[in-house]
């Protein structure tokens, strides 16, 4: 027999029932990406950590997980950066402020801030990987006293796909932030560096022992970013990464997001590199 106590029905939850939240603002960032500002009913706070996600649903269309893009320091509302890639996001792209969507969450472990406090923070974000990482970046900026230097390495396919342009400008202008950006292919207007994101890593000036890194990007990026960071000399124990998998339930039940023994929605999406090194399906 399995050694455990079955929970009583009073202590079990309606895990799948969303609350209805209002879209406050819709901001088109690029051709495919839109930033939605969302408010829970009665001004309730979402109460999330950087790196967590919510399940957003539109009745009759379905439900999908989205990374929370705003910092917990932003009061009253939260932001979701959404790329239009499927049926749900297609319908979402037609929604206007004032309309309501279902929200469940926040889910996932999020970034363990204790391991970043007092340290220099390096964020490596590829493509829409910046969406969840922006939550952490803005959290660090808003709580500067708790962290050391902030390094941001950001790569996009083209300059037209760069997200959060106002903020990118601010990061560029802020002398306290070491912000570097590259695009795989620049347009005629692009004056910055071109090349894949890993080309930015060798040039970083890092206090290696005192820098903690978090990586988020498309599946293909992780392996190369890791190689670059390791050859730079960053200890493995200082590396975290946020992963994406298919999810349905968000609460560790439905099985879709499983990487070997780990449920991304529950044990992740942010993993400490030494812990997932042994998970063959992770990277």
């Amino acid at each position, binding site marked *: 027999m399995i050694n455990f106590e079955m929970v009583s029905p009073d202590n079990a939850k309606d895990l799948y029932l969303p609350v209805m939240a209002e879209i406050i603002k819709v901001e088109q960032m690029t051709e495919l990406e839109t930033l939605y500002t969302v408010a829970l009913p009665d001004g309730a706070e979402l109460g999330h950590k950087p790196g967590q996600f919510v399940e957003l649903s539109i009745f009759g*269309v379905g439900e999908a997980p989205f990374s929370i893009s705003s910092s917990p320091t932003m009061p009253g509302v939260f932001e979701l950066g959404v790329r239009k890639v499927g049926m749900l996001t297609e319908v979402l792209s*037609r929604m206007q402020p004032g309309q309501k969507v279902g929200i469940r969450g926040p889910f996932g472990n999020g970034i363990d801030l204790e391991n970043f406090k007092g340290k220099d923070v390096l964020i490596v974000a590829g493509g829409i990987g910046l969406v969840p990482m922006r939550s952490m970046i803005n959290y660090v900026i808003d709580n500067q006293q708790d962290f050391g230097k902030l390094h941001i390495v950001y790569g996009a396919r083209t300059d037209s796909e760069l997200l959060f342009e106002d903020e990118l400008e601010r990061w560029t202008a802020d002398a306290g932030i070491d912000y570097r950006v590259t695009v795989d292919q620049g347009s005629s207007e692009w004056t910055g560096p071109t090349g894949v994101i890993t080309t930015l890593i060798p040039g970083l000036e890092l206090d290696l022992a005192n820098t903690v890194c978090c990586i988020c990007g498309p599946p293909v990026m992780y392996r190369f970013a890791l190689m670059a960071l390791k050859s730079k000399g960053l200890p493995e124990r200082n590396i975290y990464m946020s992963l994406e998998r298919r999810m349905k339930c968000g609460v560790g039940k439905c099985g879709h997001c499983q990487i070997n023994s780990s449920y991304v929605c529950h044990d992740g999406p942010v993993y400490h590199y030494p812990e997932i090194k042994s998970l063959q399906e992770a990277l």
Partner: protein
Amino acid sequence: MADKPRVAIFDFTGCEGCELNQLNFEDQLLDILAHVDIVEWREAMDGHADEYDIAFVEGSLSTPDCIQRIHEVRRKAKVLVALGACAVQGGVNAVKNTHPIDEVREEVYGQDKYLFPTLPALPLSSVVKVDYNVRGCPMTQIEFLKVFTSLVMGKEPVEPEHSVCVECKLKENECVFERGMICLGPVIRAGCDAQCPSVGQYCTGCRGLVPEPNLEGMEEILVSHGLSVDEAWKRLELYNANEVEGVRS
């Protein structure tokens, strides 16, 4: 949606059973008509339309005339939905593709064969862009309703990718193989609610193959249940000759 979408229904090479199946929506037909205006439908009404939003197209493409007409439909339609096995994957018509085309013409038309130009039976998608599929022979009614309501809601219909076995298991049907019959369910796309196995029949594969099917594995299953290798591939070809052709070595 301010104006009701205009719907047109067309038939190419096929038995028109899919369209009949549409007329069979006795309980839902009024609900369907509440959402759309049908502007052209040869089987059910008179008249032609020059413009329409959604075209439902039945049948495969098997003559040069078909090719010309489907391009015309595509130009006029905002959304094109392939209706039924012939339109989606070539269907039974495509069995002829497994024979030399001249033999086929002679068999059908005899000495008049030169009067009737013919092509291999092709799915619509091999000539024009098809937006969505309603599969089955005849087209699956529940899937038509799903695609239809999706279009009315402005969302993309989702095509099932799993096998018919999944739907049999959800209904706790006794496995067709247990009943001593041969079934293609393991490699055929679900979405029909396992209609045939649920009424004592076997799956003939009308809804098309699952994506990336292991057909060698399926051959082995069919052979282990008593078919010869040739019979096994013939079974698979019945509705899916176009897809199977490339795989069989």
